């Protein structure tokens, strides 16, 4: 287990950081958010060109075959820019599910298009009454000839409105929270019976409530084993959690830098507020929170690619807990140390705060992961 970055990872971080600094400023992000679908398709094409969409897709499917650690390096840089393009939805969750569960034909069809920036995906798994219970699936899939009929509701499906393909989980057997009996289906969002209620999220992204009413899919829409999707969903979500933590590490780093910079320029009582020791120590604690969270995130990233489910989930939960509490500290303190200015929409700090808070609230918050960590111990 190595705790040092490879030369390739250093190069990737440098080029991604440079991109964020030059081409993805706070103002540019604001404009991207206002575009159709809530992100900038030209930026997405650029991501494809830079190889970022192909990064963690297997070489056999037109990707670069990078590790989760490699993807984490990229996500950390994207986190610094609060990037709103659908990287998690399309590449991490969507392509991740296809790679983990798909047939050779499905992989060959979908993954090269994702890598080239030509297909957008969204994972429609979480449900309105599921809270953080991953195996809570009420949506049903009833056999109908060679295909299935889907009925149910999916919640907070990020980037569903721009997705070319939805990946929908539905129950073919068992009770609502049974581990067995869940299947993934590839669903065309334009299919009859699919309704999207789309909205902006507090952290500047787009999501939808997805309703499925007697949606007919063919047998070829099944992704993976019939009734055996939960282990796949768990692995994909665990990996997504690590990469959300990596994004958070970048956001935390940027938030600390912004706050320290502000403390050096903002003057009160005739001197910069950064000269006050009580405030210096709070900034130091923010920096430490980021360092520890980041270190544990990269460790978890190296664990998820090789460990069995128990060890993997434990590593992920530890990282998610550390990220949750660090993100809260940095977000809250960042705004506090900015004073009244921190409350304004014009300052970036509040936007980092919101993103960090929502990452905590995605796929299990701090308490959820603390319990899971303890239970697996």
């Amino acid at each position: 287990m190595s705790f040092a970055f490879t030369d390739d990872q250093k190069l990737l971080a440098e080029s991604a950081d440079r991109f964020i600094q030059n081409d993805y400023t706070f103002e540019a992000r604001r404009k991207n958010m206002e575009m159709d679908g809530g992100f900038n398709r030209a930026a997405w094409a650029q991501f494809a060109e830079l190889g970022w969409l192909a990064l963690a897709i297997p070489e056999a499917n037109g990707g670069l075959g990078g590790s989760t650690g490699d993807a984490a390096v990229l996500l950390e840089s994207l986190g610094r820019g609060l990037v709103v393009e659908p990287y998690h939805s399309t590449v991490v969750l969507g392509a991740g599910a296809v790679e983990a569960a798909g047939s050779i034909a499905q992989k060959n069809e979908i993954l090269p298009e994702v890598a080239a920036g030509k297909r957008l995906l969204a994972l429609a798994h979480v449900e309105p009454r599921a809270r953080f219970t991953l195996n809570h699936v009420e949506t049903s899939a009833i056999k109908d000839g060679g295909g299935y009929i889907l009925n149910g509701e999916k919640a907070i499906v990020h980037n569903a409105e721009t997705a070319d393909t939805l990946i929908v989980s539905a129950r073919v057997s068992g009770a609502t929270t049974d581990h067995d009996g869940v299947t993934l289906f590839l669903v065309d969002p334009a299919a009859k019976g699919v309704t999207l209620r789309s909205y902006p999220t507090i952290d500047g992204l787009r999501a939808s409530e997805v309703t499925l009413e007697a949606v007919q899919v063919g047998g070829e829409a099944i992704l993976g084993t019939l009734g055996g999707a939960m282990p796949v969903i768990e692995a994909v979500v665990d990996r997504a959690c690590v990469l959300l933590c990596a994004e958070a590490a970048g956001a935390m780093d940027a938030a600390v830098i912004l706050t320290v910079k502000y403390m050096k320029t903002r003057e009160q009582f005739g001197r910069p507020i950064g000269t006050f020791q009580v405030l210096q120590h709070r900034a130091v604690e923010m920096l430490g929170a980021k360092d520890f969270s980041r270190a544990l995130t990269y460790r978890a990233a190296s664990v998820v690619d090789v460990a069995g489910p128990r060890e993997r989930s434990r590593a992920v939960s530890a990282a998610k807990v550390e990220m949750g509490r660090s993100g809260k500290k940095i977000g809250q303190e960042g705004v506090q140390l900015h004073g009244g200015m921190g409350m304004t929409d014009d300052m970036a700090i509040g936007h980092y705060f919101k993103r960090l808070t929502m990452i905590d609230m995605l796929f299990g918050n701090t308490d959820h992961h603390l319990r899971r960590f303890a239970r697996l111990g």
Partner: protein
Amino acid sequence: MELILTPEEEAFRQEVRAFVTAEVPEELRRKTMTGFRLSKEEHVTWQKKLFEKGWVAPGWPVEHGGTGWTPMEKHLFEEECAAAGAPPVIAFGVTMVAPVIMAFGNDAQKDYYLPRILRSDDWWCQGYSEPGSGSDLASLRTKAVLTGDHYVVNGQKTWTSLAQHANLMFCLTRTSDTGKRQEGITFLLIDMEQPGVIVQPIKTIDGSTEINNVFLEDVKVPVANRVGEEDKGWTYAKYLLGHERTSIAAVGRSKAQLKRLKTIASVEIQEGKPLIEDQNFMDKIATIEIDLLSLESLVLRVLSDESSGKGPGPEASFLKIRGTEVQQGITELLVEAVGNYAHPYVPEAMQSGWNEDPIGPEHAASIAPHYFNWRKASIYGGSNEIQKNIIAKAVLGF
């Protein structure tokens, strides 16, 4: 969460485990694990065993007797020693004064002291703090006056850990009062076994006497015992503190103590079921375990930077802060875990040669004293507040 090891690293771990398991006697293991006080002889005997194996100073360069291990191997070594209940190697010689002698001492000093440190022939203590100079260390006043071929030293050092065992002290003394306070400090190596050196124990809140006042009255120190240049001691002292912070994190020890906490919490019964099944207590253990995992991850990252040529940067201060918070957090949970039987205080039960039945469960005996004793950790080695000052200045640029 286990570390993912290469087959070579796993083989290394097994080799260390086999050695320490075989070489640490059961009685010693029990005492180390439960925080009982070890005698000087017990410490020295163990360190000599490590020396014979060639493992007493993994952090040293190979040419001086180090092991040449990778950061991960050093980490595994610490972890295995702690898990087997091996006493920690006393830091004052091997990890504190030795790096200073290597970096700033002359050849005669290197040739004389370094082999003796490796063999545990000397017991060193640290003469830094003074009654008026704690966090503000540079205000120290112990005076050294050059008279012919030796310095005459007068003053008082305090909080001097284990000075009662020591025959040598590395000591910060004031040789100049002009200019910046930091610029008039000289680093001397003082023979403790001479007239004028008086060691007086200080009893601490846990009832122990591991720290001392050391009075220095007209103590003669040959110029040959000065490390580096006169008035430049502050630079050497800071160098030493940087080295201290990665080892002060004590990840291996905390892992072993966390395991002990879980064992105790699984035999302590609360409302009819093991305490470890209590949701609130489970959450507390999980929280501290995650603190420890991120600490371990950052330690390994800092160590790999170090092996790639970068010395421990000021960020190492975070390791000291988090490391001591974790250690203290575990001692706190141990007190909570034993409940009522935190009360009895029988100092004799924590010494060698005690043969009576314990009061209450045997595991409870030293837990409360250990908790109170360990409050020292966030105060020594540069208090945790001083560590934050260091980061504020050196990393954040305030």
